[in-house]
C-alpha cells in the first residue's frame, strides 16, 4: 500500500467506523484516534521523504503511483509528493487533530458533524497528493461541499445565508477552475498525440501562449477565490463568523491554502508565460488586499471578523509572494501558508473557546479576561504575537522570506509593491494589540466573567499542539525552509524559461 493513498484511506475508514457507532463519546474518541493515526502517518511521511532525499533521490516527485481511472479521457489516479506537498500535508494533519479536540463539546448531531469534518479533511489530503488535474479537482470539490452542511447545520448567527454565500462563491470559483483545467487538458499536446491531465507531463511541454492567456486568469482567479483574492474574499468574513469553531479552523487553516497551493502548482507552474505577462495585475490586487485586509481589521468589533480580515491580509501575502516568481519569495509563500494555517487555526480555536464561555464575540463587551482565564489569555497573546510577526514564532520567518524574496526584483514596480506589503507589519500590530488590550487586559468588564473556568484538558491539547508547531517553525526554520526551497527549484526553473529576468 502506498503511504500517500493511506492518507485518503484513513479518514474514510474513520468515517466508516463512526457510522457503526451510536454513542457520541465513542464517536469523538474514534475521530481522535483516526486523526491521531493520520498525524502519525503524516509524520512518518515527512521522515520518509527526508530520508529518501538524503539518500540522494532527486526525482521531482516521490512515492509516485498511478492507476488508470477513466482511460478514454486519460484520467488517472496519480499521486506523488515533493517537499511542498509534504509540508502542506503535515500542516493539515496538525490542524485537523487540533480541530477534532476543539469540537469535543459538539452535542448536536455529533456523528454527522464528525463525519462531515473528516470527509472534508480527506478531500484536503487527497488534493495535496494529487498529480492529476482531474483527480485534484475531484478532491477539491470533496473538500468544499461538506462546508455547506457544516456551516448550515452547526453554525451560528445568519448561518443559512453565510453557508449559501460561501458555497456559491466557492462554486463560482470552481466553475472557472473547471474551465481552466479543461483548457489545460485540451492544450496539453500542442504537437499532437495523447492529451493528459498529469501535472508533471504537462509541465514538460509548453502550452500555446494564446491558450495560456485565456486559461491562466481563469485558473488563477478560480483558485484565488478560495485563497481570498481581493475582491473575491467577501465570503470569508460572513462564512467564518457563522461557522462552528472547528470548521473555521479547518477552513482558514487548511482549505484556504488549497487556493494558494493550486494557484502556484497549477496556474503558475503550467502556464508560466501568461503568468509572467499578467502577474502585474494580480500583484496590484494582492498588495491591495494585504493592506486593505489589515486596515479593515482595525475597526471590526467581532473577534471572528477581525480574524477573517486578518486572513485576507495574510493570504494576500501568500498570493503576492507566489506572483514574485522567484525561489525565495515562493518558498516564503509556502511558509506563510503553513504559518498562517497554524496560527489562524489557533485563533479560531481560541475564539470558539472564549465564545463558549462569555457567549459574546464583541470585543467591547469583554475585558480583563487574562485575570480569569490566564491559560487561554496567554495562548491568545502568543497567537497574536505570531500574527504580528514576532521573531521566534512562525509568522516572522514566513514574512521575512517573502519580503526579501520580493525585494530581489530591482525594478520600481516590484519594489514599491513590496514596500506596500511590508508596511502591513505596523497595521497588523495595531489591530492585534487593540484586540489583546481590549479583550484580555484592563479591568474585568462584566461580573459574570469572574466565574469563568480556564481551559479544559481537550482545549489544552488542541491549543498546545498548535502553539508548539508555531514556535518550532519560528525557532528552527532551517529544515522546513530548505525542504520547501529545494522542491521549489524545478518550479522556479520552469518559470525562468518564461522570464529569465
Amino acid at each position, binding site marked *: 500500500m502506498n503511504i500517500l493513498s493511506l492518507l485518503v484511506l484513513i479518514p474514510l475508514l474513520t468515517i466508516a467506523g463512526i457510522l457503526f457507532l451510536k454513542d457520541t463519546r465513542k464517536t469523538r474518541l474514534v475521530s481522535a484516534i483516526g486523526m491521531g493515526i493520520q498525524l502519525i502517518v503524516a509524520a512518518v511521511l515527512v521522515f520518509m521523504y527526508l530520508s529518501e532525499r538524503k539518500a540522494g533521490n532527486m526525482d521531482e516527485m516521490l512515492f509516485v503511483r498511478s492507476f488508470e481511472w477513466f482511460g478514454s479521457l486519460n484520467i488517472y489516479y496519480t499521486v506523488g509528493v515533493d517537499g511542498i506537498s509534504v509540508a502542506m500535508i503535515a500542516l493539515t494533519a496538525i490542524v485537523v487533530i487540533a480541530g477534532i479536540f476543539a469540537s469535543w463539546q459538539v452535542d448536536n448531531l455529533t456523528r454527522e458533524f464528525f463525519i462531515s469534518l473528516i470527509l472534508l479533511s480527506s478531500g484536503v489530503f487527497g488534493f495535496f497528493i494529487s498529480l492529476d488535474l482531474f483527480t485534484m479537482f475531484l478532491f477539491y470539490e470533496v473538500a468544499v461541499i461538506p462546508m455547506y452542511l457544516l456551516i448550515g447545520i452547526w453554525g451560528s448567527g445568519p448561518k443559512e445565508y453565510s453557508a449559501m454565500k460561501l458555497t456559491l462563491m466557492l462554486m463560482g470559483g470552481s466553475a472557472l477552475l473547471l474551465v481552466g483545467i479543461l483548457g489545460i487538458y485540451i492544450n496539453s499536446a500542442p504537437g499532437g498525440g495523447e492529451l493528459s491531465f498529469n501535472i508533471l507531463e504537462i509541465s514538460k511541454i509548453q502550452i500555446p501562449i494564446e491558450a495560456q492567456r485565456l486559461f491562466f486568469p481563469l485558473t488563477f482567479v478560480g483558485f484565488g477565490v478560495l485563497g481570498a483574492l481581493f475582491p473575491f474574499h467577501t465570503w470569508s468574513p460572513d462564512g467564518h463568523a457563522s461557522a462552528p469553531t472547528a470548521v473555521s479552523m479547518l477552513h482558514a487553516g487548511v482549505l484556504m491554502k488549497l487556493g494558494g497551493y493550486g494557484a502556484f502548482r497549477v496556474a503558475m507552474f503550467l502556464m508560466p508565460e501568461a503568468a509572467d505577462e499578467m502577474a502585474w495585475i494580480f500583484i496590484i490586487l494582492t498588495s491591495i488586499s494585504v493592506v486593505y485586509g489589515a486596515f479593515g481589521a482595525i475597526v471590526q468589533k467581532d473577534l471572528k471578523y477581525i480574524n477573517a480580515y486578518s486572513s485576507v491580509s495574510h493570504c494576500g501575502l501568500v498570493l503576492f509572494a507566489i506572483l514574485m516568481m522567484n525561489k525565495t519569495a515562493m518558498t516564503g509563500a509556502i511558509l506563510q501558508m503553513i504559518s498562517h494555517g497554524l496560527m489562524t487555526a489557533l485563533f479560531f480555536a481560541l475564539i470558539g473557546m472564549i465564545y463558549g464561555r462569555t457567549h459574546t464575540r464583541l470585543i467591547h463587551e469583554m475585558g480583563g479576561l487574562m485575570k480569569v482565564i490566564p491559560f487561554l489569555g496567554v495562548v491568545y497573546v502568543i497567537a497574536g504575537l505570531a500574527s504580528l510577526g514576532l*521573531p521566534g514564532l512562525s509568522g516572522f520567518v514566513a514574512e521575512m522570506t517573502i519580503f526579501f524574496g520580493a525585494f530581489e526584483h530591482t525594478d520600481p514596480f516590484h519594489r514599491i509593491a513590496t514596500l506596500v506589503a511590508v508596511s502591513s507589519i*505596523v497595521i497588523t500590530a495595531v489591530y492585534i494589540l487593540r484586540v489583546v488590550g481590549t479583550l484580555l487586559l484592563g479591568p474585568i468588564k462584566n461580573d459574570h466573567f469572574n466565574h469563568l473556568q480556564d481551559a479544559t484538558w481537550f482545549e489544552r491539547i488542541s491549543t498546545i499542539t498548535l502553539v508548539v508547531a508555531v514556535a518550532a517553525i519560528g525557532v528552527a526554520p*532551517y529544515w522546513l525552509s530548505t525542504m520547501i526551497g529545494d522542491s521549489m527549484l524545478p518550479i522556479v526553473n520552469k518559470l525562468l524559461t518564461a522570464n529569465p529576468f
Partner: protein
Amino acid sequence: MTTDFGYTILIPLIPLLMFLLLGLAGNQLKARLSGLLGTIGLGIVFVLSYYTAYKYFFATEKIAGAFSKISAFDMVWLRFSESLHINMGILLDPISVMMLVVISTVSFMVHIYSLGYMKGEVGFERFYAFLSLFSFSMLGLVLANNIFQMYIFWELVGVSSFLLIGFYYQRPTAVLASKKAFIVTRFADLGFLIGILLLSFNTGTFDFNILCDPQGAAIATGSGAAFLGLSVMTWSLIFVFMGGAGKSAMFPLHIWLPDAMEGPTPVSALIHAATMVVAGVYLVARLFPVYIISAPDALVVVAYIGAFSSIFAAVIACTQTDIKRVLAYSTMSQIGLMMVGLGVSGYGGHDGLGYMASMFHLFTHAMFKALLFLGAGAIIHAVHSNHMTEMGGLRKYLPITHITFLIACLTIAGIPPFSAFFSKDEILVAAWHHDKFIFAVEYIVAGLTAFYMFRLYFNIFWGKETHYHHKPHEAPAVMTIPLIFLAFLSVFSGFIPFSKLVTTDGIPFEGHIDWSLALPSVFIGLVGIIIAMVMYKKETSLPDKMAATFKHGYKWAFNKFYVDELYMFVTKRIIFAYISTPVAWFDRHVVDGTMNGISWLTNAFSFRIREFQSGQLQKYGFVFITGALLLTFLMVYLWT
C-alpha cells in the same frame, strides 16, 4: 581564538532558560524561589560578562595593535538565497563586550533590587520571567554578528518591553502605554527593516564583519545610484537610523518613552534608562564605519536629530512634576547627546573621539541613570507617589537614597570627578571641533540638565516637608545595596581609560582632558545647580513667578509641545476615521454589496423565468406550438 570564547554562548542562553523555566513552571514555584532563581541566573551572567571583559581587553592578543573581532559562535539559521542567509552568532569586539558589562551589571542590580521592590506583588514570578526574557533579548542584540540577527533580537527586546510596561495589566493606563510603546517602535522598526532590505541588496550581505570592514567591498560598492540627491546607501542608513531613533526615543519617535514609565520602576531603570533605549546608539555605533565612509550625510541626520532631541527633552524635563517622567525626558536628552557624539565623530585614531566619547557616555549614563531610577523607586516605595509636589524634606528619612541620589545628580550635572564629567566633556570636545552650532546646543543642554536634576533633588529631599500619611522609611538592604554599588560605579567609572579600550578602529589612542572646554562646562553645570538651589531648596514663590512670566512657553513645554496630541490626531482622525472605517464600509457595502447584488440579480431573473416551469399543460402546449410555428416560419423565411 574561537574556542577560547566558546563559553560566551551561555551568556544569552542562561536567561533564556530562566525565562522558559519561570514562564512554564513559574506558577508552581514559590514566588520567592522564582525571584531567587532569576537573580542567580543573572548573577552567573554578571560573572561571565566581567570575566569576558577582562579576558577580551587584557588577556587577548591584539592584532596589529588593534582589538580583534572575535566570532565566538556562528550558525546558519535561515537561508534566503545562496548568498543571503541569516546567521545566529556571537561577535565579540570592544563595543559588544562593553555592552555585556553594562547590561549584566544593570540587569543584575535590578534583579536584586526587585526582590525587595516587587515583594508581595501579584505576578512576581511573571515579572522575573519577563526580566529574564528581556535580558536574553538584549544580550542577543548586542552580541549579534549580523544585522538581521540584531533585528530579530531588536523585536524581541521590543516585545519584552511591551510585556513589562504592561505588567500591571489591569490598569488601563499601563495597557495603553504598553500598546503605544509597541506600535511606535514597531513603526520605527518598519524603517529599520526597509533599511536592512536596501542595505543587504546593495551590499549582498548581513554580516557585520563584511559590512563594516573599512577596506571591504561592501562599503566601496555601496554608494551607487541616487534618489533625491542622496545615494542608496545613505537612504538605507537613514532608514536604519529610523529604527534606532524609535528604540532610543529620538524626536519625533519619542512619545512612547514618558508613557512607558507606567511600568514598574525597576523596569524603567533597566529597560527605559540603561539598556534598551541605548540600542539605537549601539546600532549606529555598530554600523559606524559604514556611516562614516559611505554615508556621511546620514551621520549628519544622526547628529542633528540627536542635538534637537537633547534640547527638546531638556526643556520639557524642566517643567514636569512626575519624577519618573523627569527622568524619562532626561534619558531622552542624554541619549540625544550620545547620538551627537556619534554624529560629530570621525574615523580612526583621535578623529574617532566622538565615537569613543559616545560609548563612554553610554556606559556612565547606564550606571547613573539606573541609579537615579532605582533611587526614584525607593522614594516612590517610601511615599507612595510619583509627584514631587507631594514630597519634600525626605533627606531625614531616606539617608542612603539621599546620598546616592545626590551622587547621581552631581554625576549627570557633569561635576568632576564624577564619571559623566569625563564622558560628557569628551562629547563636547568632539562637537566643538566638528560643528560649533551643535556644541552651543549641547552646552545649553548641560546647563538645563544640571538645573532640572537639582530641581528634582531639592524638591524631593529639601523644600517644605509634606504631611505624610505614615512616616517614610528607608528601603530594605536588598534595595539599598544595588544603589550603593551603582553609586560607586557612577563615581569611579570616569577613570576607566575608554580611549584605550573602545575606539572606532580598535586601536587605542591617548585621551586627555581639554580644560579650556571642560571648565566652562563645569561652570554652566554649577550655574544650573545654583539656580535650582535658589528656586527650590526653600519653599519660595519664585518657581510660580517664573512660570507666570513665561506663561506660554511654560504651558507648551509642560504639555510636551503637544506632540502627543498631534499623534493622536493622525492616528485617531486620519487612520481610524479616514482610512480604516471607510475601508471596512467599502468592503461590506461595495465589494460585498456587488456580490450580493449578483446573487440578487440571479434570484430576480430566476423568479421571472420560473413561469416557464409552472406545470400547467395548457401553457406548455401554448409555448410548444408557438415555438414550433415560429421555427417553421423562420426556416421557410430563411430558405426563400
